[in-house]
């Protein structure tokens, strides 16, 4: 089930990426597994799970693309790494808007920003992303339960 969710999210995201970018997804399944497992624990449609996971993957991939750019000389490879990261950061926002995941975006935006701050400080805390997603899901679950109880 988790594998199927990851596959769905990969396909969804690859379909959303403009072919002009030449970006081919090649994240390792184990990198996405914790986020997929987390999503599977919450009561939501398979479509929404895949959508949220695709947004998570886009951010994750952007973080990876903008990692260790200093090891490259100026040229085509560096240019593509910078551009890919920029494109994927903007794509995650577009996906949130397209899927009408406004609360998810409002919750993740400060998290993505804080990750950048930690990276500038030279003390990366990229794990904030999955923690941020976990808090969002927990809050949403709590809100839904409270609403039902009322």
């Amino acid at each position, binding site marked *: 089930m988790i594998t199927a969710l990851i596959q769905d999210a990969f396909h969804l995201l690859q379909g959303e990426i*403009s072919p*002009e*970018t*030449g970006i081919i997804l090649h994240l390792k399944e184990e990198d996405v597994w914790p986020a997929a497992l987390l999503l599977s624990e919450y009561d939501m449609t398979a479509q929404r799970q895949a959508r949220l996971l695709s947004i998570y993957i886009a951010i994750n991939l952007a973080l990876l693309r*903008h*990692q*260790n*750019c*200093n090891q*490259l000389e*100026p040229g*085509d490879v*560096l*240019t*593509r790494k*910078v*551009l890919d*990261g*920029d*494109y994927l*950061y*903007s*794509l995650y*926002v*577009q996906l949130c*808007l397209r899927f009408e995941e*406004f609360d998810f*975006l*409002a919750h993740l*935006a*400060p998290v*993505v*920003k*804080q990750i*950048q*701050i930690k*990276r*500038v*400080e*030279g003390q990366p805390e990229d794990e904030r992303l999955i923690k941020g997603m976990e808090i969002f899901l927990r809050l949403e679950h709590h809100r839904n339960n409270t609403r039902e109880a009322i």
Partner: protein
Amino acid sequence: MNLNEQLGISLRAVDKEIENMVKFDKDVPRSSELARSILELIRSGGKRVRPLMVIVGSRFGSAPDERKAWRLAAAAEFIHAASLIHDDVIDDSPVRRGDTAMHIKLGINRAIHVGNYMSARVIELISAYSADRERYAYDLSSLVTTQLCLGEYQQLSHLFDYDVTIEQYLEKSKNKTAQLMAACLRIGALSAAADEETADLLYSFGEKLGMSFQIRDDILDFTQSSAKLGKPAGSDLRSGQVTLPVLFALQDEELALRIRSIGAHTPAEYTSEVIDAIQSSGALQQTEALSQQYLDEAQQIIDRLSGYPAHRDLQALLSFFGGREK
């Protein structure tokens, strides 16, 4: 008189609004290198064309919300500045606005993350005003740089490609430059509750100014002295960018043969000779004519908006873009 003075907008107030984006971020200590780097970049100057366009756009609405318009104006400049930081990394440019470029000061990695921080800060601020989701969705999707990135990819995939068409060049320029300028006027207008038709006209006006701006930039690469450009004339072609003057020059069969022989490893002296030939061909005049055509079309839009007192501000913008150094 400067553009901002003609528009009655204090550049100092605009700069303060931009600085506040980082100063009032509770996650960024004021004494941090991140805050210092961004403030240095902002204080190094710039004409603030995009923020001015947002504020001008807001003058076409029936319910101006000054706070909102100024916040969006600052956001537009933040997005633009972030893209400049990344551009400098990609182009390996050591100087920005007369100051050392950020990636030289901080290193490539940290400079890239500073740019990312600036974009993420804009998304954070806009997504926080959740009362009107349709509005914020529009503002966000206008300001995120998907189109700008696509323009860069298009440019990258056509390096030394002399078969690129004028249509493809125009599409790239629209994505890379004109879209954000157009969006600035439109989001400003919508922030003040302008009607859709007016907002669309403003978008179209901004797009035409942006196209003219990019085309003029391509001409300047051929006409300005290397001292002024900070790089040799014709640098775009030397780095493989086939811009509009080159596309027009390619219509001359004899010149086309010489241009097509230029590649990544062509000796600089040979390329310089071809650049001289392009300069003395009619290609720059043809390019200038197309730039002027966009400005003429922009003028027609001003005429359609002449019922608004703020149409004079569009005229000031048009004069500014049209009067750039040739």
